[in-house]
């Protein structure tokens, strides 16, 4: 029973000590560690990611590699038998391919290894590390990055498992904590409010007054849930209005027609550069009667404001200006942050479980478990057979037990040798994982 340990010791005598398993590492910069100009400079386009993966995976110190690059972060995830060398290679590659001096980003770059790297990836995927905590895009971005890496054969057993784990952790955090529940952008907050007023937004008509980036964003958000409602665009320069109307397949109207359009519009988004109120209380009051008191929701994102705040006092008319929306967002942000404590707990738990799996990839425990499983089967079969053979002496039984042991030893000889050294440049963890799978060895 001392075969694995014994032969390992032998090996150690003969070979230089090499780690049994590749180390998981992550190297990156994000919005807290580096200013935007540096992040821009280091960012990888899709094509660049592909080329980098292709090039670096050929290096002996890098076993698996994947690149996540968004506007707020660049992260390079890798596994390596020599992580220090891998980090040096990666930094050199960044410096060379981005033509930046290494000292420029040396301060901003962080490196995590092993369980710290695992936790970091889990936190990034669940949007705990995002600039806006809980924002949902990051998971999709990581999925895309993972797809790119898979297509270029950058990932192997460890990163595949790690990434799938990070997707499920992110999903679990999203469903079990309130981290992504509440709107934290102006346009999204406006849509959420509209829902609280109108319920269904499908058939609601929108009037856009003035053109601005934020107003456009709000319309885009609204259009995801609207289908049949009309869209009107009023702009001081009619041509600009026509252009916007065309983009959102709506109708351009004159500035003078706003009052009239209030009769049929439900949601008004205003963002003009006007110094005066564009819509006043005395204009809205008569309209409410004509609308049969159907609610009107004014979203005023202009500074100075476009809509007379007194309009909010009219029955069934609701006015939210930029500060009100900002207030909504701040409240929501607070509750997201308090939810993130729960999320951290889920991540710690998942990281511990991933570590257990990772440890099990080691050759020694795998061989031990495999041997244990075979011994168990042989023992129980022997017992069954012996039950109907009372005439055997204790020497006979001992002989049979020895035979069993010998069979196991011989049977395991070749697989064990292979697992210990599958040949140079081959991914040992792949074969260990495969062995664990075909013999159904538990990840305990």
């Amino acid at each position, binding site marked *: 029973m001392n075969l694995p340990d014994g032969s390992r010791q032998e090996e150690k005598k003969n070979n230089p000590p090499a780690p049994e398993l590749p180390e998981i590492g992550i190297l990156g910069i994000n919005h807290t560690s580096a200013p935007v100009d540096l992040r821009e400079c280091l960012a990888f386009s899709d094509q660049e990611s592909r080329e980098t993966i292709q090039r670096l995976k050929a290096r002996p110190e890098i076993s698996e590699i994947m690149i996540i690059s968004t506007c707020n972060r660049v992260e390079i995830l890798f596994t390596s038998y020599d992580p220090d060398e891998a980090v040096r290679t990666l930094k050199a590659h960044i410096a060379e391919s981005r033509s930046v001096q290494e000292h420029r980003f040396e301060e901003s770059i962080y490196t995590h290894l092993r369980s710290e790297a695992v936790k970091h990836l889990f936190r990034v995927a669940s949007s705990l590390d995002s600039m806006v905590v809980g924002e949902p895009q990051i998971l999709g971005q990581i999925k895309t990055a993972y797809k790119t890496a898979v297509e270029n054969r950058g990932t192997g057993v460890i990163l595949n498992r790690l990434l799938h784990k990070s997707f499920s952790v992110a999903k679990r955090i999203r469903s079990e904590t309130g981290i992504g529940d509440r709107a934290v952008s102006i346009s999204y907050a406006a849509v959420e409010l509209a829902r609280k*007023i109108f319920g269904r937004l499908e058939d609601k008509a929108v009037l856009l007054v003035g053109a601005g980036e934020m107003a456009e964003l709000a319309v885009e958000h609204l259009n995801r849930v609207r289908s049949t409602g009309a869209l009107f665009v009023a702009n001081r320069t009619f041509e600009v209005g026509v252009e916007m109307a065309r983009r959102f397949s709506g109708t351009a109207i004159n500035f003078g027609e706003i009052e009239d359009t209030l009769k049929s519009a439900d949601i008004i988004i205003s963002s003009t550069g006007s110094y005066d109120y564009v819509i006043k209380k005395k204009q809205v009051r008569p309209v409410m009667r004509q609308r049969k008191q159907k609610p009107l929701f004014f979203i005023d994102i202009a500074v100075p404001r476009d809509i007379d705040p007194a309009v909010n006092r009219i029955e069934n008319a609701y006015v939210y200006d930029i500060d009100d929306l900002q207030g909504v967002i701040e409240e929501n942000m607070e509750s997201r942050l308090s939810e993130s404590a729960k999320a951290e707990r889920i991540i710690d738990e998942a990281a511990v479980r991933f570590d257990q799996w990772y440890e099990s990839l080691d050759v020694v425990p795998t061989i031990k478990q495999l041997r244990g499983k075979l011994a168990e089967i042989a023992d129980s079969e022997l017992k069954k057979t012996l039950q109907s053979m009372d005439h055997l002496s204790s020497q006979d039984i001992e002989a049979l037990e020895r035979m069993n042991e010998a069979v196991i030893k011989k049977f395991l000889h070749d697989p064990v040798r292979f697992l210990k050294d599958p040949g140079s440049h081959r991914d040992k963890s792949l074969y260990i994982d495969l062995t664990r799978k075909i013999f159904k060895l538990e990840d305990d």
Partner: protein
Amino acid sequence: MNYTLLPVIFCYLAASGGYAGFLFLQRGIYNRGAYALVLAGFIIHSVLLGMDYADKGSLPVHNLHQNLWFVGWVLAGVFLVLRPRIRLNILGVFAAPLITLITAAAFFVPDTPMQPQSELAGVWLTVHVLVIFIGEACLALACGTGILYLIQERNIKAKKHRFFFRRLPSLELLDSTGYTFVAAGFTALTAGLITGFIYAHQVWGHFWTWDPKEVWSGVTWLIYAALLHERLVAGWRGRRAAILAIIGFAAMLFTFFGVNFLLEGHHNEFTRW
């Protein structure tokens, strides 16, 4: 005090607790569990009432105790029927405590035996009482929905987005649900009044006798008629409709209790101690 009522009240009370849990924790299991508890309470309640009916041969609505007990049963029934048909999860949060309150009140009001009056029987009376009570149950739910509407409207207008803002549905849903309750309640109330006229004609030979209860029923009916009319014609919705639904319910409560305590009339016995 009749202790056989306690299991019913206990079910309703537990359901109220379940709905409170749902309000705070927002877990669907509390919502479904509480509904099941109301259903359980209603079934026991029905058995008790059925036994009573078989015993007396007429609807047990001869004094205040019996009336409250019966109203509680009708309200629970109306709630159970309507709840799966409307998307208002929050409905149980006020309906269940209301049912509990009414049945608990019935428990504490003594069941004074009344001199059975031969005229207080017959199919018209049964229909009259049942239909009126169904209408009143709907209007009670309309009042509750109206209160929720006012809370939510306040939240949106004042830009307060705390506890209730998150838990209450959209204004539109509250408004349309309230309207549905008022329309259903008004229809039942009208049918109840008509059957009452027919019954009165059979017993006393008059459709209308300016009895205080009749007058106040008329007033209540007019309030709801005005609400529906204005909604259809002038678009009275939202806040105004909600306030009117609450006023209408207050008038109805006065018709139910106030008239009997403060004024005299031929409905008196039903709500006497």
